[in-house]
């Protein structure tokens, strides 16, 4: 894998100078309206006219499959008055948002664009749970799809193996849900602003044994947006900006059962290696992180594969409160996908939105003390991953 250096003189350092997100949840708006809502607010946040955008990217997994609307980036450019900005749709399933951050970063770092907006969004709740589950499961290989595999069932299989190998109690998974629901209480954009206790999680119906209803994120409508420019001109837009000091993207196998260790996400390991190298930082330098807790078990796997904790020890960190908002390494201060919701293409963008708020000191009641933040966005069942490391602007 090619290694990038953050000091490469041929590469612009990239700043994020604006951020927005819509309320996540069950929304009447369709995907075009959701994207326009977040995009419009992001432009207002940085006080930038749409005509100034060189590039406009849309992170979206399945607007065609969900509502029969394709070509959404062009629609958004028209609705926002952003013509003649270059547009593209970034689809990397659940990690479309992280892949969009990567594309937007590339556009600025390469010098191809001086101002890029990324808008991620998905409209899902008009479908039944079974239909939405099938749309997402359609990313799987035919030899797995024909057995009726779903992303939740991959999570159930992985959780069983994890609990078996590392002697973790089933309750430790429930504590991820309890923590993230508690964090979501203070997020005005979250789908669920409701605390849950351990008993509620442990008594909820089985969805994919040993995982229960409260181990899973909901189906969600919503959108989020970010505005990128070269760091050299960031102060022309705002004093409160963040810098992408490291970013990496990687893939793992398409066929999930072909992985040597079902409890390791190779794409998380590889993408974070690249991002840490580029930033000149390591896991110990990270002060706050947004992880892709589509299922509670994924928070354990990512916190280990990012190097925060030893393999098999992620569950202990949750038990000990290390990842609580007032712990040594707060994880998912936004409430995570678990409580905030998971509108597929928006999620990776909304993760960076939260880190942007934390690093600019504008996270309100969710604010933690931090200089370095990390977002890890996972597509498929770890099939594609983008890890982004950010620091407060100087």
């Amino acid at each position, binding site marked *: 894998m090619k290694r990038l250096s953050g000091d490469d003189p041929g590469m612009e350092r990239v700043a994020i100078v604006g951020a927005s997100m819509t309320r996540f949840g069950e929304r009447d708006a369709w995907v075009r309206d959701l994207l326009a809502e977040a995009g419009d607010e992001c432009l207002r946040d940085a006080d930038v006219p749409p005509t100034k955008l060189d590039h406009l990217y849309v992170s979206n997994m399945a607007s065609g499959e969900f509502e029969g609307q394709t070509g959404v980036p062009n629609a958004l450019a028209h609705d926002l008055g952003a013509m003649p900005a270059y547009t593209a749709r970034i689809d990397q399933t659940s990690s479309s948002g992280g892949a969009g951050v990567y594309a937007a970063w590339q556009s600025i770092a390469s010098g191809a664009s001086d101002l890029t907006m990324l808008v991620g969004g998905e409209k899902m709740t008009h479908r039944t749970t079974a239909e939405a589950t099938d749309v997402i499961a359609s990313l799987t290989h035919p030899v797995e*799809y024909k*057995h*009726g595999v779903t992303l939740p069932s991959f999570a159930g299989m992985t959780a069983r193996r994890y609990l078996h190998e590392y002697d973790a109690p089933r309750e430790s998974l429930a504590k991820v849900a309890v923590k993230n629901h508690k964090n979501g209480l203070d997020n005005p954009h979250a789908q669920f602003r409701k605390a849950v206790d351990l008993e509620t999680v442990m008594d909820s119906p089985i969805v994919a044994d*040993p995982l229960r209803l409260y181990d899973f994120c909901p189906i969600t409508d919503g959108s989020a947006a970010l505005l990128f420019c070269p760091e050299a001109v960031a102060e022309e837009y705002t004093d409160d900006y963040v810098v992408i000091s490291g970013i990496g993207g990687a893939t793992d196998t398409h066929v999930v059962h*072909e992985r040597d260790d079902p409890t390791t996400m190779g794409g998380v390991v590889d993408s974070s290696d690249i991002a840490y190298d580029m930033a000149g930082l390591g896991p110990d330098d990270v002060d706050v992180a947004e992880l892709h807790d589509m299922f509670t078990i994924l928070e354990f796997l990512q916190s280990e594969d990012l190097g925060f904790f030893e393999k098999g020890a992620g569950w202990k960190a949750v038990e000990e409160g290390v990842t609580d908002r007032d712990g040594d390494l707060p994880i998912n201060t936004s409430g995570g996908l678990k409580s905030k919701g998971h509108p597929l293409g928006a999620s990776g963008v909304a993760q960076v939105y939260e880190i942007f708020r934390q690093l600019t000191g504008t996270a309100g009641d969710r604010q933690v003390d931090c200089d370095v933040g990390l977002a890890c966005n996972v597509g498929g069942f770890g099939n594609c991953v983008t890890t982004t490391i950010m620091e407060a602007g100087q």
Partner: protein
Amino acid sequence: MSDSFDAHRCENGHLSYPGHTRCPDCGEPQTEAVDLRDRTATVITWTTSTATPPGVRQPNTLGIVEFDVDGESVRALGQFTTDDVEIGDRVTPVYTSELRDPSAGIREPDSQEWDGYRFEPVE
């Protein structure tokens, strides 16, 4: 429709199920098929899914099993014939002509096969 259940091997001896255009381990072409039908495998993990997509049996107990082929391991994912299964159980493949209703889901029915093998515990 075919009732084959083959792993694929490259010149360097790596095995994969299913086959790929190039070996996932080394990038060389896969040149040989290994029949898994009459072999036994070990259960690596499993789940019972109660929220299944359209056309899939509910509940659906499925898992990942590992075959040992002359010292080289290869894994497969599949449904089980029972919900009474544990990690470490030994299983053998049993043919089923239709694992889910091809017309009910989002995927184009003609784009893939729908028959295959469930795993049944052996004593």
